[in-house]
Structure formats: structure tokens, C-alpha cells
């Protein structure tokens, strides 16, 4: 029986979805629910970064958009009293707007320059937050952020979990739609060969900006949800760490695929939490570093490519035994 990779991905995602929806029924551990909420947020964040990378732009400063979404959403919620469920999307729009601005400086730049500019941008935003904007952002101390739901509501954690799950699924569907549409094709064309894409009538600047806007928007959504979930925000959101996590998730799962960020985030979160039990602190990061490097060298297409690799290996093994060419479907 032959699975096509697309089918496998689709069934895999649906299976993950069913499990995700069923978890609260199976377990009433609040620790687990909390962990899953943070994991879903990471999935949105990693998918957002992945979409930008899909268009050939590797950002090293996505924490900037994550943080801007969080700060903007909190500010709007505090000032106007609107429910955080709505301000999440307003704050993310601010992140998208700034994403377009930074995208404008980046669209004509090559990989390294773009990486540099985005990395520097996160530092600039952090500096602004703790200096000029300190009166409204609270500087290094941060400020309290309204919770998504008041803890007085019975079962608020479950409601929050399902709400975040729905937002995650909606984000993934949106990204899937973009990747499969003409826009996704245009992203691919630009990534592979910009000159050829241009000669085929694809305007790279427009598409890259679009990728920046959507990616920054989703990163902003992720940041806003996380901050309303935790209830507190500090400028450490803009830290290098926060920029590197989505990259690690995506590389491990599979760059430029829909399922990659999801699988990468789940696998790495499990490893990360598992290592917590061993009592390692810095060692955990060292292990993540090794995982990242080994993945890049030995499994450049990530974990989503693993079934295919095994299949090829399996077929190759068959050929050696019988001396015949492996049968193609």
C-alpha cells in the first residue's frame, strides 16, 4: 500500500486534531491543558515564521512581531476595555502594519542582509519599548495584561483551550489555503528563481510584502494570545530566544510544509518537557542545538520527510534482495 506524502500529511494532521480536541476529555490535568495552550500558540508562531520562509525570507527577528502583537493588544484592551478575544486580532493588525513597513526595507535584500535587518529590528523595538515608550509599556518591569477569561468563570481553562485550538486551526487553514493558491505558487517561484519569476509576470515585491504582512499578523496573534493567557508581559518577549524558537520548530518539522511546524513543535515540546524531568537547565538548550544541527545535516527536509525516507529505504532493501527494480505505484 502506498501513501502519497500529501495524504499522509493530511491524515496525520486530522489525527493530531482529533487527539487535540479529545485531550481535555481524557485528562483533567490543568498542567497538561496549560502546556497544550502554550504549544498551540507555538504552532501558530512557528507556522507564521514558516510562511515567510516559504517565500524565501528567513527572519531572525520574528519575536518583534510576536511582541508587538502582544503589546498592541494589551494597550488596546487596557485603554478601551474591549474583550481580549477581539483585541488579539486588532493588536495583530498593528504587528502586520509594522511587518509591512519592515518588509518594505527587506524585500530587495538577500538572505543574510534580511536576517540581519530583522534581527536588528527586534533589538530596536526592544530598546524603544524600554526607553521612549517606557511610560506606557512599563519599561523592563512590564505590565499586567487582561486575561482572556476571568478565572472566576467555571472551566475557564477549557474554554480558553478550545478557543485557542479554533484560532490555531483557522490559522493553519488560512496558511494551507495561501500555500495551495496562486499566491503560494508565486512564493515558490520567487524563492526558487526571482529573475524567472519576474519574467513570468510575478511581481516579487508585492508577494514578499504580502508574505510579510500575513506572517507578522499571525505572529502577532500568537503573541497576543500568549500574553493574555499568562496575564503579564515584559520586554523579554522581544528576546533572541523568542526569535529562535519558531525557527527550531520549523527546521525540525520540515521547512516550507504545512505539517512541519505542527509536528516540529509537538515533538520538540515533548522532548523539552521530558528533559525538564532530568533537571538539566542549560543542557536542554545544548541538546536542542544538537537536534537542530543534526536535523539540518542529516534530515534537511525535516521530520515530515521521514516516512518518505523510510519508504525509499524499504524499497531499496527489497531491490537488494530480489535484484529487481522496485515497483512504482
Amino acid at each position, binding site marked *: 500500500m502506498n501513501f502519497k506524502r500529501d495524504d499522509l500529511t493530511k491524515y496525520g494532521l486530522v489525527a493530531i486534531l482529533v487527539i487535540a480536541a479529545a485531550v481535555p476529555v481524557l485528562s483533567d490535568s490543568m498542567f497538561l491543558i496549560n502546556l497544550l495552550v502554550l504549544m498551540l500558540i507555538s504552532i501558530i508562531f512557528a507556522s507564521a515564521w514558516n510562511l515567510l520562509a516559504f517565500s524565501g525570507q528567513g527572519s531572525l527577528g520574528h519575536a518583534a512581531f510576536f511582541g508587538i502583537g502582544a503589546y498592541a493588544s494589551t494597550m488596546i484592551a487596557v485603554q478601551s476595555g474591549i474583550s481580549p478575544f477581539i483585541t488579539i486580532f486588532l493588536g495583530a493588525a498593528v504587528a502586520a502594519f509594522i511587518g509591512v513597513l519592515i518588509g518594505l526595507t527587506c524585500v530587495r535584500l538577500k538572505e*543574510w542582509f534580511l536576517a*540581519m535587518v530583522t534581527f536588528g529590528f527586534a*533589538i530596536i523595538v526592544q530598546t524603544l519599548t524600554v526607553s521612549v515608550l517606557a511610560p506606557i509599556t512599563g519599561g523592563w518591569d512590564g505590565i499586567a495584561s487582561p486575561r482572556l477569561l476571568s478565572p472566576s468563570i467555571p472551566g475557564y481553562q477549557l474554554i480558553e483551550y478550545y478557543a485557542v485550538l479554533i484560532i490555531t486551526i483557522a490559522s493553519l487553514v488560512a496558511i494551507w489555503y495561501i500555500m495551495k493558491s496562486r499566491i503560494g505558487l508565486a512564493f515558490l517561484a520567487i524563492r526558487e528563481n526571482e529573475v524567472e519569476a519576474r519574467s513570468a509576470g510575478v511581481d516579487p515585491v508585492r508577494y514578499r510584502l504580502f508574505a510579510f504582512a500575513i506572517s507578522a499578523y499571525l505572529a502577532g496573534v500568537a503573541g497576543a494570545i500568549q500574553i493574555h493567557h499568562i496575564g503579564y508581559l515584559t520586554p523579554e518577549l522581544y528576546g533572541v530566544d523568542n526569535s*529562535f524558537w519558531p525557527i527550531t520548530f520549523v527546521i525540525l518539522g520540515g521547512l516550507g510544509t504545512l505539517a512541519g511546524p505542527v509536528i516540529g513543535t509537538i515533538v520538540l515540546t515533548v522532548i523539552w518537557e521530558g528533559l525538564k524531568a532530568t533537571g538539566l537547565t542549560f543542557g536542554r*538548550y545544548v541538546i536542542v542545538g*544538537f537536534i537542530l544541527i543534526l536535523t539540518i545535516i542529516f534530515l534537511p527536509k525535516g521530520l515530515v520527510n521521514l516516512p518518505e525516507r523510510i519508504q525509499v529505504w524499504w524499497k531499496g532493501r527489497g531491490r537488494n534482495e530480489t535484484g529487481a527494480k522496485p515497483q512504482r505505484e
Partner: protein
Amino acid sequence: MMDNLGIFLQIMFWGLYAGCIYILLATGLNLIFGVMKIVNFAHGEFLMIGAYITATIFFLTGINPYVIILLSMLALIGIGAIVERLCFRPILGTGKLNEIFLSIGLIYIFQNGAAMIWGDAWQSVRSPYDGITVPVGSLSVPLDYIIIVAFTAAILFALYFFLKKTTTGMEMRATSQNRKGAMLVGINVERIDIISFGLGCALAAAAGTLWVVSGQVFNPYMGSIPAVKAFAIIILGGLGSIPGAIIGGLLMGIAENSAAYLLGGIWKDAVSFIILIVVLVVRPTGLFGEKGE
């Protein structure tokens, strides 16, 4: 009026001194980029390792920290060669993004590995010449600053002669000009890759030693910001251009110290990136770069 001039000169000196560390880092990056055409975002981690090696030897033996510069450079040649062989060579030519991602893995490993060995607290070392100042014109300059500038100049001259006069240096230049051509005339480019990477790391180690002996604090996470500034410098100065790296490093040192004085210390890091972004918007190939790579 005299006051303003004094402050101006003071800032220039700080800039010159900060610039020295950036120049060494940026020159190392340029050397690696020139030969291998890769960009190692983890370059600052080699500065950090150099700093810790210097501090550890100094704490253990108490010998003059300026002498340790040779040891830390030698150690980093070895570490650099291992990193090149195990990490960068397997992915050479598989795409620019892969190099960036691999560097992130290296950053994780080096920073947290160092934190496991040495702890993550801020530390500092007292230079034997601490407190000694030399009068230069109207202001007094710490002797350490002058030694650091002299060391940087000496290292750059040594590098210049190595590249111009020795066979290996010429092979490195040939490889950087045309890799295939270098292979055709019988140069072992993989050997040249390892040497360049090791030398680049050694320059970072020298920067780390100078960082430590000047009395600046250091911790395992210190390397990222100077490394990214070194990137900004080689982009300003043109990729692969060593004179560009020197001029860019000095400009960066002076610019950020002026900003720290005028706007407050918090702006020190951000201002270099603002300069970088402005330059890239106006001139995407860098200030002195002939063409972007």
C-alpha cells in the same frame, strides 16, 4: 568650548577602543566569508569562548592576560577547525538559509555549553595596568586602551603579511577569488576552508581576550550582539573587503559611543542597527561594496 572638544576626543577614544574589537570580529568574518562564502552567525560565540579561556587561564595562573591572547587564539583555531569540519562542510552549497539555521544551533550549543561549564553570571577581570593612564593632549587615556589598539594593529599587520607573502595566504586569496580556478591549479580548497575558518575564529578569540583584559564584563550570552554588529560592519564596509571592515569598525565604534553619550546607554545597541537599516535602504550593497553577494 574646550569642554566640548574634550568630550569629543573622549568619545573618539572610546570609539577607537570599541572599534578594535569590532574590527577583529569583522575581519575574521570577512576572511571566512571571502573564502567559503558562508556567513556564520555564531561568530560571536567564538569571541565568548576566547574571553572565557583568557579569564580561566588568568584566574588559574595569574600570568599577564595580554600573553594569554596567543593561547586563546591557538585554542580557537582548533575549535574553529572542528566546527568547520563537522558542521559547515556537510552543508556547504545547500543554500544560504541553511547556514543561518545551522549557526543558530551552534549559538544554542556554545552559549549554554559555556553556561554549563562557567555558570551564567557576569564576570570581570582586573587588568594589571588597571588605573594607569597616559596623558594624550588634554585628556588622560587608560594604558589598556593604548595596548589594545596596538595589539589590534599588530594582529592586522600580521594577517596582512600572512595573506600577501606566504604560500598559504596566497592560496587563500586565490580560493576567495575563484574557487574552481583554485582547484584547477591544484589548491586543496578544503584545507584552505579549514585554515580560513580557524583563522577567523582566532581573530574572534583575540577580540575576546582584549574584551576581557580591558575590564569589560562578560557572560556566556555576550557574543550575540557584537557578532551582529560585526555583520553590520561588513555589510557597511562591503562583503569580503578587509579595509572596509576596518573603516566600518571604527565608524561603528564611534557612532555607538556618540549615541550612548547623546541619547543614553540603552541606545548603544539599537543605533548600530538603525545605521545598518538606513544604509541598506539607501544602498543595498553596502557603503564601499562594489556588488552585493
